[in-house]
């Protein structure tokens, strides 16, 4: 329990080492933290500090060299690759820097993918509602190549929320967008997150964006150098 809420993500003493020929390269070392339902957290740090690696490990996309990740009560260390995938399908949403829409599917089909993977065959109305919610109600049957970057990222947001995830991992969600479009996407991200009560883990270089979350974990050289509550969080707590 964290602050009386359920813990969604627990990271304990996480280390990731890559083998490069004879040399080993440690990109994360002894990282630990926990997030509760509805928490928002940013992971910041310079390039090469291990942000994306940490995100990947938290989401079970990769296995750590040592340490443990527990997501929604599932300890990843004891799960196979396919079992981790099943956990992701049930509890996790993703937003990627370069959108990662499937080019051969229309906008609505892209949104439906996580739901269909869960075995739901009637996800279309929900996907349509989500697309309408992100302002793309009239672009549902467009293919990614027919959408702008901002529109593609909004489709990705709708896709991330279709399974009502417990936790959303967003990797530089505005990294490929201009500032105006980026702001719009961020507003949408936070609104949807708030409405769904989803825990948010955000990897970003943008400190203004990071400041919008409750908590900032700063990485340097693969180690946590600070883990602070933001003014937003403090203001919220005071309020």
């Amino acid at each position, binding site marked *: 329990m964290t602050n009386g809420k359920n813990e969604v993500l627990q990271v304990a003493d996480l280390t990731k080492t890559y083998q490069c020929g004879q040399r080993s390269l440690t990109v994360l070392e002894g990282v630990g933290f926990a997030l509760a339902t509805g928490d928002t957290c940013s992971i910041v740090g310079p390039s090469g500090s291990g942000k*994306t690696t940490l995100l*990947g490990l938290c989401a079970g996309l*990769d296995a750590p060299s040592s340490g443990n990740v527990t997501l929604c009560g599932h300890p990843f260390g004891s799960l196979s690759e*396919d079992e981790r995938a099943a956990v992701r399908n049930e509890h996790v949403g993703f937003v*990627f820097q370069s959108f990662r829409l*499937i080019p*051969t599917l229309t906008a609505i089909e892209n949104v439906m993918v996580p739901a269909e993977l869960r075995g739901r065959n009637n996800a279309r109305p929900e996907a349509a509602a989500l697309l309408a919610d992100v302002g793309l109600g009239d672009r549902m049957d467009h293919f990614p190549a027919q959408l702008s970057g901002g529109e593609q990222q909004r489709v990705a947001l709708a896709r991330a929320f279709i399974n009502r995830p417990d936790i959303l991992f967003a990797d530089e969600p505005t990294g490929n967008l201009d500032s105006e479009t980026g702001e719009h996407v961020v507003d949408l991200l936070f609104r949807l997150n708030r409405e769904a009560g989803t825990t948010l883990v955000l990897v970003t270089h943008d400190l203004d964006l990071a400041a919008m979350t409750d908590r900032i974990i700063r990485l340097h050289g693969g180690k946590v150098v600070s883990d602070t509550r933001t003014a937003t969080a403090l203001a919220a707590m005071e309020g």
Partner: protein
Amino acid sequence: MDRWIWRFAARDTRGNRGRLLLFVSSMVLGVAALVSINSFGDNLKAAIDQEARTLLGADLSLESGSPFNERVEAIIDSLGGTQSRRTSFASMAFFPRTGSSRLVTVRGNQEGFPFYGAVETDPPEAATSYLESGGALIDGTLMQQYDIVIGDSMRIGGMDYRVEGRLLQTPRESAAVMLFSPRVYVPLARLDTTLLAAGSRADYEVYFRFEDERDADAAIEPLQSELRGYRVGTDTVEEERENWNAALTNLYRFLGLVGFTALLLGSLGVASSISVYVRQRIQTIAVLRCYGASVRSTVWVYVFQAAGMGLFGAFLGSGLGVLIQTLIPQVLADFLPVDVDFRVSWPAVFMGSGIGLGVTLLFALLPLLSLRDVSPLMALRSGVETGPRRKGWAWWATVGVIGLGTTGFAVAQAPSVGMGLGYAGAILIVFLLLAGTARLLMAVLSRRPPVGVSYTIKQGIANLHRPNNQTLTMMLALGLGTFLVTTMLVSEDTLVSQITVAGDTNRPNLIFYDIQPAQVEPVRQVVMEQGLPILEQTLIVTMRIHAVGDRTVQELREDSTARATWAHRREYRSTFRDHLTDSETLVSGIFTPAWSGEGAIPVSVEQDVANELAVDIGDSIVFDIQGILVPTVVGSIRTVDWRRMQTNFFVVFPAGSLDAAPAMHVIMTRTDTEAQSAQVQSAVVRQLPSVSAIDLSLILNTFEAIFSRIAFVARFMALFSVLTGMIVLAGAVLISRFQRIEESVLLKTLGASRKTVLRIMSVEYLVLGFAASLTGILLALAAGWSISIFVFDAPLSVPFASVGIIMASVVVLTLVIGHLNSRGVYDRSALDVLRSEV
């Protein structure tokens, strides 16, 4: 989950269907080849079953190399039914109007035969009228070659015949058989019986028709053993059907095997295309994995796509195969004894489609299995290394199934297990060598080029070993096509050159045989009057083996545990002389020049025959010469160079041992021109009609005619592989097109001209075409050498000019296909390309 796999697999093909069709097009021709040849085979079998009686022309036939004896005549009488007799032998036919003569197979027929089916002639009524008028029917090709027209006169032996019509189709004989020895039909009653003197070869046949519908097989069965003892062979409708079925099944199965090569090559094209295709889907797969798709389900998505492609290709190939099937009877026309109706054979269509689908899936599975290694992390960072590719049990199991499946199909399709295994082994070796050469080429080319090499050459060569290159696929496609064509060419040349070489220098090229002792001097005189030399004169005595060691051939044939081979059964034409000729080499024992007259005669036996008879020096062989048993002992064993155009013998007796035996003489001479040959043949035949002649140039022409027909069939089937190779090549160029466009745009942005970009591509295709064709040709020479040594037993002959043309053609073809499929690459807008997603 399963429903999702289907749905996603279908959706994911959007925008790629054209590309997927291109991938699958490489296997369409292979399926078409299999379906067409097997469907035709089924129709052929049905036609033979339907017309089995027509093939024999009767319910039963008896055949002997000598006139039937009294006991056999009694058996013939007891069999009853309607009978018709025929006597066949080789003789010279002389045509007075043109002054030409030709060795032909004379068939003396009686009314009645064929009882079933018909002899087809032009004019049609000649098929029966010649029997009444005493005229003759002549093979159509022979009439054309010798400018013979209906109404001409023909002389065989001492008899003159009026040519009544041309033979178009006869029972038991295909057009190819006619090429070896043209047929001439005359009434049996008008045969010149002096041509059937002792020592001459003739076949005596009697055909039966049983109106009482009795079972001919059952009727003849109890008599078989006795008839065999008199060297009388029997043939029933069932046997005839089995013989034709066996021979033609072998033929179309072999052709199916050649077609299967195209399917294998096409499947490699599929594997290569899928490999590139899935590489382009990695981001999609990574996203799916992020969202919870299991490893298994992502692999299944693309297995379903491959299955869909395979099914489509199989249907397309089957449709094309059915269309091509209509061409096969024309391609094989010379080898078919019956007309084959067109009918779609559904078992063949299902088998071809099934094999096409199966092979596509198996070959697609190899690259698809690598999808298991796609990490979901790649959705976050596209540069994530997936680590070394796993080649776990599934990969090896797939390779194993491909290997076993290919071998199994080859064995099932081939005329024999050995040939099937040989084919599978040869294909494996050729593929491995081509792949090995491609890897070697890439390794060599990836070395730093020497200083001073131009940029275009460096870049063009770099294209062959850069990541995502298609060098391996293109080398396989081009190399295999070149290999097939060159192997056929070299084999054909080796065969033809054997005959040509045999006719070189001062060796004899015209042989007169069937010369009775009294005719020797007149023949010599006629030959010398024409200014030609007598190069060789030999005596031939016809005999059979009665016993080897202490067991008679009859005993050996009846003993299922003993081995009676062709060497035990054949009729030997032996000679006696006091020396070895220059085509013979003693291997063991001592050659005895003359026989003392006491004890068994020491004979010299050819090595292969000695092996077949399982005899060695000192072993005894009893020969039957016209009913007289002659005991001999193996005195020496020798090898014979059969390619020499001279009289060669399996068994040579010492001088003085066969003086009393009925012998036939052979005289050999050499002519320099065809006209000279025709002149001396006519002169001999006019004066001595029973003497026959063999002209080497005629044999050469006949051989070339036969071989060109076989080669045409083989080339027709090889065409499937060559065309498939071109499709695979075009596919390989097309799937790397986006990469080429990116490079071209980058070069253009950096200032490269259109000419530079084109030159770079030209260098790439030239090197590729050259390397692939050279490898294919070298492999073909190795294969040709193996065939020449182990099959033809002759030195390899290489038509260098033709091989050079093949090489140049492959290089030019590669260049043309490469450029055609890369056209427009330079013209693409830089901005378009930079904005595109791969």
